[in-house]
Structure formats: structure tokens, C-alpha cells
């Protein structure tokens, strides 16, 4: 077969299949497999001794993209950067705003990790835009779910099942997405808050308002909460809309246009998070923030709350075991993207028994790590 095989210094073998058939062959040939795309979320794709890394980066390329249809299909190892560029040429974008685009994240890795960024605030996350998927399960079967049209109710929703499956139910080899027209222009208001309570009250008001907000992040800057409110739309009306928002909020300083894009790009790159700290995705709700914030502050963690309080990225300086204890107490769950851990989940977990049933069907011999 045409896959390339290379062996690194350690006992880990890396195989880079080029075709779906290659992937099927590899899956059948090895007993322990860890799937890796761009490797931007190392905690999700680091292989232990004896495991084989299935590198998806040669499964690359956009298979189908008809701009007028606002739908594309690409192979799993295609870098998000390539997809974002192709879409941008027609004024389109991935509305769920995936992170680590410039760092080399792949389409398949983003689906498998189930990651969306600040921009998911407006229209939803990766689960809401994935419409079809093709994957090779742990028995080497090539399976397809969903389709290539924006609305489709045929069969079980396998695409959603694969979102967040971190390569442990199968190897995603191809994915289809719906996309949207990108707002031609953006503007962001920086709103300093006197206290956390005030910040949360402002988020609550905004969440219930009729303002169309692209992103709404809460940062802690020099110990003080600051909101970043991003709007997008036609250049002719954006200034007026930002002005209305500012009046409604009572405060706010617009970011300069050049800084604006830079600010959100930095968010996507996690450049605020110290590189040698653990990085954890934690779904939350607004009412959990006060308690969580106390813990994170006391622990010296860096953090960034996204999407109007739906999600927090935690940069954690210490042992993940401690974070696990805290999150479990709060009945929150987390996914470790970077950091020393054998098991990428921290905190509470729901649906584990159903996940286990699914795992027994798709990967009965645990070729992929347990889920």
C-alpha cells in the first residue's frame, strides 16, 4: 500500500495512510492505534509504548466545494487553514470558529475533539455545522453517516456521534459541513467591569437582548473582569450598531480595527495560555462561573470564558488530578487538550454507559484507546 511508515526514536510507529483503503488496512493490521491529525491537541493523540500512530495528514484535500451551495466536503487530514482560505475566497467561513487554525489543526481533529471557538456564540458549534462524515471503525469498516445537503433526517446521526469521539470510535476520513456567508466586517467593544457580578449581569442582559452578537468573551485582565463583545455585518451599518450597543451597555471602548482581528486570532491560537501549562476545555453555564472563578483564581489558573458563559478554556499550572477534584465537586466535565495525562477527561461525566455500548459496536477489541 502507498502509506508511508516511519519509526521515531521511541517505540512508537507512525503510519501515514493516503487512501481510505489504506486506513482500513492499517486499522486491521495493528492492535493499538492512536489517531493523530495536526497534533495540536497533544493530550488527545499521544501514543503510549506499543501503540501505533495513525497520522491523517496525508488524507488531505477538499473533495467538493460548490460556493453557491454553502456546503463542502474535505478529507479529514486537510488543515483548517486550507479550508478557511478556500471559503474566504468566496466570502464564506466556518461559523463555529474552530481554534488552532494557524497552528495546523486539521478538519478531522477538530471534529474528533469537538472544538469550537468564541465565534460559536452566534450560530452554534461544530456539531451544528457538520452534516456528514465518513469513518473507519475499529473493525476496519468504512462507514458513512449523514449526507451532503443542509437538511437531512435519514438514518442515525453518526456525524454527531463522532463529534467529540477523540479518535476512539473510529478514524474520521472525510467530513461534510454547511457553512455561512461571513460578515464582511467586524467590530469589537471592550467593556471593563467593576466586578464579576457586574460582568455576569451584563452577559445575562446581552444574552436576552436582540443584539446580534458574534462573540462574547469574558477575560480576567490584571485581576479585573473585562467583556469583549464582537459584532459583525455590513460595513455601512456596523458603526451605528456598535454605537447603539455602547449606549445600551453604558460603557465600552471600541478596539482599533487592526487590533480587532489580532485579538480574536490570538484567542483562536490560545496565545494567552502558557505553553507548558495544561489546557482544558470545560463546558459550563453562566450560574457556575462565580464558584468556578473563585477556584481558578485561587489556583493561579489562567482562564477565558467564551460564548456568553457556555464554555471556559482553563490553562492549569499544576496537577490535573486537582482540577479533576474541583470539577467533579461542581459537577462539571473537562477535556484535556494539552497536559500530562493518560485519560483526557477530567471532572464529572454523563452518558458513559451509553458511550461504552457504542464503543463495543464500533471498536469491540479496543484498537483505539478506551472511551
Amino acid at each position, binding site marked *: 500500500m502507498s502509506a508511508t511508515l516511519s519509526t521515531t526514536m521511541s517505540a512508537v510507529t507512525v503510519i501515514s495512510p493516503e487512501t481510505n483503503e489504506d486506513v482500513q488496512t492499517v486499522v486491521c493490521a495493528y492492535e493499538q492505534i492512536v489517531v493523530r491529525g495536526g497534533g495540536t491537541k497533544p493530550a488527545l493523540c499521544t501514543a503510549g509504548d506499543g501503540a501505533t500512530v495513525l497520522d491523517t495528514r496525508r488524507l488531505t484535500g477538499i473533495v467538493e466545494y460548490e460556493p*453557491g451551495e454553502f456546503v463542502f466536503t474535505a478529507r479529514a487530514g486537510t488543515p483548517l487553514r486550507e479550508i478557511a482560505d478556500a471559503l474566504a475566497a468566496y466570502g464564506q467561513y466556518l461559523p463555529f470558529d474552530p481554534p488552532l487554525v494557524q497552528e495546523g489543526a486539521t478538519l478531522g481533529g477538530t471534529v474528533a475533539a469537538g472544538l469550537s471557538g468564541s465565534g460559536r456564540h452566534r450560530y452554534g458549534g461544530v456539531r451544528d455545522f457538520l452534516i456528514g462524515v465518513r469513518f473507519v471503525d475499529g473493525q476496519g469498516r468504512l462507514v458513512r453517516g449523514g449526507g451532503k445537503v443542509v437538511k437531512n433526517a435519514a*438514518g442515525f446521526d453518526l456525524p454527531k456521534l463522532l463529534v467529540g469521539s477523540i479518535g476512539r470510535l473510529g478514524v474520521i476520513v472525510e467530513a461534510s459541513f454547511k457553512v455561512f456567508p461571513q460578515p464582511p466586517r467586524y467590530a469589537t467593544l471592550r467593556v471593563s467591569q467593576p466586578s464579576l457580578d457586574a460582568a455576569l449581569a451584563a452577559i445575562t442582559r446581552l444574552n436576552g437582548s436582540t443584539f446580534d452578537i458574534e462573540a462574547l468573551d469574558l477575560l480576567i485582565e490584571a485581576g479585573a473582569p473585562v467583556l469583549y463583545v464582537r459584532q459583525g455585518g455590513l460595513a455601512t451599518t456596523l458603526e451605528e450598531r456598535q454605537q447603539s450597543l455602547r449606549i445600551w451597555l453604558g460603557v465600552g471602548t471600541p478596539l482599533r480595527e487592526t487590533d480587532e482581528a489580532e485579538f480574536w486570532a490570538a484567542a483562536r491560537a490560545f496565545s494567552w495560555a502558557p505553553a507548558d501549562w495544561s489546557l482544558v476545555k470545560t463546558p459550563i453555564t453562566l450560574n457556575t462561573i462565580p464558584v468556578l472563578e473563585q477556584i481558578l483564581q485561587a489556583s493561579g489558573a489562567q482562564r477565558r470564558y467564551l460564548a456568553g458563559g457556555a464554555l471556559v478554556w482553563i490553562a492549569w499550572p499544576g496537577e490535573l488530578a486537582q482540577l479533576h477534584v474541583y470539577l467533579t465537586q461542581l459537577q462539571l466535565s473537562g477535556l484535556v487538550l494539552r497536559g500530562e495525562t493518560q485519560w483526557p477527561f477530567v471532572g464529572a461525566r454523563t452518558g458513559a454507559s451509553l458511550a461504552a455500548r457504542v464503543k463495543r459496536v464500533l471498536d469491540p477489541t479496543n484498537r483505539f484507546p478506551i472511551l
Partner: protein
Amino acid sequence: METSGLISELERCFPPDRLLQRPAQMAPYESDALTAFRARPAAVILAETQAEVIQAVRLCHRHAIPFVARGSGTSLSGGSLPVEEGIVIALNRLNRVLRLDPAQRIAVVEPGVINLDVSRAAAPHGLYYAPDPSSQLICTIGGNVAFNSGGAHCLKYGMTANHVLGLKAVLPDGEVVQLGGESLESVGPDLTGFFVGSEGLFGVALEIILRLLPKPECYRTVLAAYDSLAGAGDAVAQVVASGLLPGAMEIMDALAIEAAEAAVHAGYPRDAAALLIVELEGERVQVEAEFAHLLRVIEGSGPKTVTVAKDDADRARIWKGRKSAFSAVGRLSPDYLVQDGVVPRSRLGEALATIERLSRTHNLRVANVFHAGDGNLHPLILFNGRVAGELERAEALAGEIIQMCIALGGSVTGEHGIGMEKRQHMRAMFTTTDLEVMAELRRALDPGEISNRGKMFPDGEAPALSSHGVHPLERQGVISRE
């Protein structure tokens, strides 16, 4: 099927007025909105609590007797058709909104809550529940979850699956699971999303956490008339390609226009071959600017006339005509079949031209009322079941339309689901391996295949097809098929 052991156990758990066994009592449960199918269950349980549903499922599991959970029975694909001699678990009495949290913008509801009641409960807080199937006055959230229901406003905010954050469910073998949660985000496989749209094969949702949206500040609605159906279809492709993102984009053809006009006097132009409704929503300033752009695109698409809704009353009238069109068309004919298929949006014009041609070939009238922005077709095939051979011709025509959807790269169903109706088309959508994996997943949750047995998979047993006319509620205009 040996049900006497199960029935006697059920009799110990449920009072006789909530365990229906007489044919006359069970008649309303023998069919759903796909009236061509009919089957008589052994008993119908009117459950009132989650505990009762769990108990009923566990008993069915222990006795290996199939069950079908049912809300208002508005499924258009026969999704809530009983299994002959099986059990029906009616969920309409589990109709409490358990919690409404306006700050978090969520509602936690039981499966028997009616779709529109969620929006009604949320309205005082300026919020609403987005998925709006045309049967929203009567259909339940439990059914919406099972079939991932859509509606006219899916274009921007998606279908039911995109609005369910978490749920509690009893699996067919009696295990109760909690999936997802109250956050918009999750970690691990999206099991909530996997459950939604499983057509009742994965068990029964007992509590559903729904996402609510703030009502838009402003709507702007335009009605454009065209000389041909293909012209309206091409206009949709142009609007989509223009970079605008309408909240809804709907098409009606001449037959539908005529029927809707006769029924509700929506003020539609009567001499048009097709009508396109496009609606923008959002912040006023933005919507006004986009609307000007939309009108330029529409003007450029060669319409006969363009009418802009002046106020809320105008808008309401336009939508009333649209939402009543199905039942109105239904009145033109003794019987009709509704199809639900999807084509790529750029090929709508082509698809509509093909449907017109097929209509002539089969010598049956076809009305079209559908969610054009999603490429989701709903051709309505008119026939008279009393004329020998007409039902079969209508079925053949419906099948050819579905084949066309597949050939154009679309789907055999956009929002009605596979149910009983589309099972034979699954093989055209999926490979043997795909179907095998889906069947294995189903058996992992339901080893005895007791939950909604016979649906979705192509090899299920089906009762004979016959023509029974329209659903009584449909005749009254309460529900409609789209």
C-alpha cells in the same frame, strides 16, 4: 405475540382508564398522520409520570413485547404507527414545563409538552423555541426529538437536534441515562445529538433540555411572484449565493397559491406560477440594509411582481397563507400523498422542472409548498383513492421524486424521517455496511429490537398499504403535512 403475561402485569400497575384495551378506545392510536398505515396494538398506556414510562418500558423489555412511544401522532412517515399486538405508550400527559430559566435561556420539558407551548412559556421573557414544524400547535417535543423535526425557520438556526442540549431517557432495556446537560457545549461523543432523530429506536426521552433564543428585534418579509416554478427555484439559488442569510425562504406553486387564497385570503397574486417568500430577521438597522440588498437580488431574478410586507399584520397574513397551504390543497382532492425530499439548493430549479414533468407523465396533479432555502421539497401528490390504480400511480410518482432527490445528491428525507414510509429508500442512501453498523448500534441499545420495531430499517415488516383518507385533525385544518 404472547402478550397476556405482560398485560396482566400492566393491569396491576395502571388503572383501567389509563390502560386501554378495547378496540373502540384504541382506534385513535392505530394510525398517525401517515394514514395509509394502520395497526392495532394490544394495549395503550396513558402514562402520567416518568416513573410509569420507565416501568412500562422495563415490563415490555422483560416480556420481549415491542412498544411504540407516542405523542400527538402527527408523524408523516408513520413513525408512531403501533406494532400490531404491541404496546403504545402515550406521553401526552407528561406535559409539564419543568423549568424555564430565562437567564440561561433554557427550558426543561417533559416529552408530552406541545411545541408551541414552549414558545408561549418563553414569550414573557422575550425568548422563543426556534424549530417550528407546521404541526407545532399540536405536535409534542418528544416526537420532535425522536424525528429531529424541522420547520420553516431551519435555515439559520437548524433543526431540533441543534436546539436540544441534553436529555434524560429510558433506553429500551430499561436503563435510564442522562445525556448532555445545560451547557451549549459538551465533551465526549455528542450522545444527545446521536439520540435525537433516532426515530424512537433508542428508547423514550423523559426530560429534554431545550435551548431558547431571543426574539429578533425586527422581521422584513417579501413576496415575489414568478412565471414559472423553475424561475422561483433559481431565485432561491441567487439569494443563497448573494451572501444573505434569510431566516426563512419558502416556495408555493400555482395550485397551492389558489388553494391558500380560497382558504384564508392571504392576498397572494393569483395569476402567478410560483410564489417565493423570503424573510430576514435580526437587528433593525442591519435588517433594513440587508433587505435593500435582498430586494435588488429579487428584482434581478425576473419576478412578475414583488410585494413587501408593510407591517406585522401583512407579515402574519403572508405566513397564514403559507402555513395553511397544505390543508388547503388537501381540500382540493379526496386524497393526497406528501413527499419530503432534499436536493442541493443550487439545483432547485431543475428539481422543480422534473417534478412538473413527472406530474404530466403520471397524469396526477402535484402541488408544491416547501422550505426552499434548505432545498427541502414537499410535493403534494393529489389522487382519488377510490379510482382503481390511482394510489399506486401516486406511490410510483412519489418514488420517482425520491429517486430524483438521490440522483441530484440530496436526501430521501429532510424532516419527516424514514419511519415506515421511506424504509425501502435507505438502501439508496446508505451502503450495506452503513446499515449494518446502524443496526448493530440499535441492537447495542435494544437487543430485542422492541422499541419502535419495524421502523427505519429496510427489512422491517410492514402492514399492507391502504388508502384511509386524511387524518381527522388534518381535515379540521389543525395539522398539516409538511
